[in-house]
């Protein structure tokens, strides 16, 4: 191009007509050059932009490289951790193998044990049969003990009852004697003799009642279970003790609540319980200024409760548990057998009930008896 421009200018110099043309051509050439220059400038600016972008990009790349390095470090850590876990797993695997071996040995041992167990089971069966036999024996013995206790109670009652029997017998003798006298006396009216004999008959039936009650009580009755009215049981026990209590001026209060308490049990055994408790209370209040025995009862849902309280000196602290032991007595030698409360305990236990005693200092003793009530169906058949 510069050669061309020079050539042009040379041409223009040579030929002035051609000079104008050449000038035109030159101007056009300058314009083209200027255009090119502008274009190049634009390109340069674009290049500058691109360079800026590139530098930016480069910076970002550097950052990413740093991030990549971090990530790589993390990877390395993970890898190491994995290696450790693998090692651990390997250990575990080996341990499991050991355990499996042991377990095999255990299985063998178990087999041996199983065989031994079979032997033991055989022995156990024999022992159970023996146990059952012993248990039956024990139950027989217990029944004998109950009977013995009953007779002991009876023995303690006898002195009092003998006195009670002596009275109607004495009266019978007097009434019959009077009748004999009246017959011997000429001219007595028949009615008077009959009256005397009638009185005698009344006394006979009084004595018979006492004796028949004693006989029922002493009889070795099978321990059957039926619906029993507690009121009747308590009244029967009281009737046997009545004279002794009356002579000692012991007041007895019975309050069994609005609902008749009915329990499933044995009337004679339960009567024995109350005779034992009455005998104890009778002796306990002997030295008291006020002599009272309270028998209170209540039938709540699922339990019949009887409280038996007296105004005696109470039970010395520490003896509350021992008083139910067989042959434990605080009475003088020959006064008590020490069987009463232990028999009572046994009977209540046998009835599926509980008996306990509370004796706050300064107050009398209170025996608390809980008995399971008779089922409703059984109550309907009770007399």
């Amino acid at each position, binding site marked *: 191009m510069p050669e061309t421009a020079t050539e042009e200018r040379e041409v223009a110099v040579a030929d002035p007509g051609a000079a104008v043309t050449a000038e035109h051509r030159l101007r056009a050439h300058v314009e083209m050059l200027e255009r090119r220059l502008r274009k190049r400038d634009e390109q340069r600016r674009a290049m500058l932009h691109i360079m800026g972008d590139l530098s930016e990009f480069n910076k970002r790349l550097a950052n990413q490289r740093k991030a990549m390095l971090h990530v790589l470090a993390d990877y390395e850590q993970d890898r190491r951790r994995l290696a450790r876990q693998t090692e651990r797993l390997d250990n575990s695997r080996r341990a499991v193998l050991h355990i499996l071996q042991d377990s095999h040995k255990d299985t063998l041992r178990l087999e041996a044990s199983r065989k031994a167990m079979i032997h033991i089971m055989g022995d156990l069966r024999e022992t159970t049969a023996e146990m059952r036999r012993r248990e039956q024996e024990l139950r027989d013995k217990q029944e004998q003990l109950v009977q013995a206790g009953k007779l002991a109670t009876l023995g303690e009652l006898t002195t009092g009852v003998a006195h009670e029997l002596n009275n109607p017998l004495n009266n019978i003798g007097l009434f019959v004697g009077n009748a004999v006298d*009246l017959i011997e006396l000429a001219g007595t009216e028949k009615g008077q003799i009959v009256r005397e004999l009638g*009185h005698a008959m009344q006394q006979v039936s009084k004595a018979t009642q006492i004796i028949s009650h004693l006989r029922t009580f002493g009889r070795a009755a099978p321990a059957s279970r039926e619906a029993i009215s507690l009121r009747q049981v308590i009244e029967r026990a009281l009737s046997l003790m009545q004279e002794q209590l009356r002579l000692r001026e012991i007041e007895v209060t019975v309050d069994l609540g609005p609902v008749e308490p009915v329990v499933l049990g044995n009337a004679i055994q339960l009567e024995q319980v109350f005779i034992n408790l009455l005998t104890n209370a009778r002796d306990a209040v002997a030295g008291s200024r006020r002599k009272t025995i309270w028998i209170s009862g209540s039938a709540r849902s699922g339990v019949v409760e009887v409280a038996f309280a007296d105004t005696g000196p109470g039970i010395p602290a520490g003896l509350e548990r021992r008083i139910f032991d067989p042959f434990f007595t605080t009475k003088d030698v020959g006064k008590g057998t020490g069987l009463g409360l232990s028999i009572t305990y046994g009977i209540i236990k046998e009835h599926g009930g509980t008996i306990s005693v509370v004796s706050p200092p300064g107050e009398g003793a209170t025996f608390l008896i809980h008995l399971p009530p008779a089922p409703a169906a059984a109550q309907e058949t009770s007399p």
Partner: protein
Amino acid sequence: MMTPLSVLIVDDDPALLQALPQALRLRMGGVTVETADSAAAALDRIAAQDYDAIVTDIKMPGMDGLALLAEIRTRRPDTPTLIITGHGENELVVHALRGGACDFIQKPIDRDYFVAALYRAVRAHVRNRRVKDRQLALASCADELERIVQKLEREPRAVPGRADS
């Protein structure tokens, strides 16, 4: 014994209070028998009347026969008291006799023995009373004599000379 005998029977058994008085009435003609069913009731009776004899049971609720006996001994020391005891109650019998009972009867009561004992007691009582009456009479006689003697001593000897003659 001109006046009819009066006897008090004390017992807490109503049947005995029917039988025993009847037996006494049949066996002892003309006897009046009263009854009391407790020691307290008996003391009321005793305060109102002087019986020829009292028969009491030992075993009674409240005041028993022994305590009643002691009361009778202070209130009516002269009235003979018989005690009824149960069979074999020897200790009580001894207590009763020491306490001043004049006799004891064991149950069951033998009527012949009882009536005899009662008569014995009453007779002894009557004799005692007679002795006491006579003692009283004698004592008053003695007093009288004493007075006469004193009177004679105080009186001036009216005729001294005559005494010598």
